[in-house]
């Protein structure tokens, strides 16, 4: 009995020592705050905030060089979460960067598409498939709804379609408590 306890304690000590040592030895410097902010951002990579993607925007917020109200896809909810995370005051969305819209995906009108590949180059998440002079189409599951493909299309065959709720994308609603009243 005692031997068993000693053996297990020995293994645990040894393992703990090795892990503790390697935690120090192999520490990776990251910016935990930027990572936390990045986790709140909607990951549309749309660039409406003025930064090339969500991660750079998160880093800019962490540095203090960007405001928290520049993310239209995140909407008011997103700004509230950022304000809470950073202990800042809530600010309404900066209209310069766009309006919040319902979550939607791009749809290519395949009859009109001429296969110019311009939208493929614009897509930040590689959600459009197709080849030169071949019809293109959008992978709805990958599309983040950033609308970056709409401007380059020379024949205006891309439209945004709001996402309808189905079994695959349904999520629990956040508690319907008004956040302002609680604060």
């Amino acid at each position, binding site marked *: 009995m005692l*031997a*068993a306890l000693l*053996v*297990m304690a*020995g*293994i*645990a000590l040894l*393992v703990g020592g*090795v*892990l503790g040592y*390697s*935690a120090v030895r*192999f*520490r*990776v410097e990251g910016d935990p705050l930027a990572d936390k902010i990045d986790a709140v951002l909607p990951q549309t990579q749309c660039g409406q905030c003025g930064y090339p993607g969500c991660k750079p925007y998160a880093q800019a917020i962490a540095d203090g060089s960007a405001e928290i109200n520049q993310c239209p896809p995140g909407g008011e909810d997103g700004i509230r979460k950022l304000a809470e995370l950073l202990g800042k005051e809530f600010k309404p969305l900066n209209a310069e960067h766009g309006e919040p819209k319902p979550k939607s995906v791009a749809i290519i009108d395949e009859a009109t598409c001429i296969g110019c590949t311009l939208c493929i180059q614009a897509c930040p998440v590689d959600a459009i498939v197709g080849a030169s002079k071949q019809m293109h189409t959008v992978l709805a599951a990958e599309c983040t709804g950033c609308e970056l493909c709409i401007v380059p299309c020379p024949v205006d065959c891309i439209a945004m379609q709001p996402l309808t709720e189905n079994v695959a994308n349904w999520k629990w609603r956040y508690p319907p408590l008004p956040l302002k009243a609680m604060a």
Partner: protein
Amino acid sequence: MEQYFLILLGTVFVNNIIMSKVLGLCPFFGVSKKLETALSMGLATTFVLTLGSGTSYLINHYLLLPSGLTYLRTLSFIVVIAAIVQFTEMFVEKTSPVLYQVLGIYLPLITTNCAVLGIPLLNVQANHDFVQSLAFGFGGAVGFTMVLVLFSGLRERLEGADIPKPFRGTSIAMITAGLMSLAFMGFSGLVHIH
């Protein structure tokens, strides 16, 4: 040399850990939807399993057997494997951030993978020596990776197939797995390890 080759052949094809031992089914169904993730999971498992079977052999042979505490085998193996997974994660994060991104969530998931515990226990059962244990662990992991990659390839094809509605999704995956397992039965008796 020949016996190690036989162990490898035996674990990869004949006694494949998923197909004939039916271990590690959670990652088999969980991460086989895409070829990429299946390969990453396979790589991570290969690394941990090889290291795990070696360390478990050492623990069993030099610590548990001399002190007559063989009933602590499962417990101590779990502790050691969990530690190896943790260590691997830290090491990979430091040395190769790209690989760390690729393996991602799959690395910690291995801790709870029954194949990773099963192989060291089977090693003990079969009285393998150190190098045999390593070969058995590596072979088992290669077999695991191979089946995972094959299965994810099939599942990717199934995505585009016209499957009757009641069979879509997991049901057809189960059927596919069953048929694969039948196919692997064809290997039985190919290698006989004494």
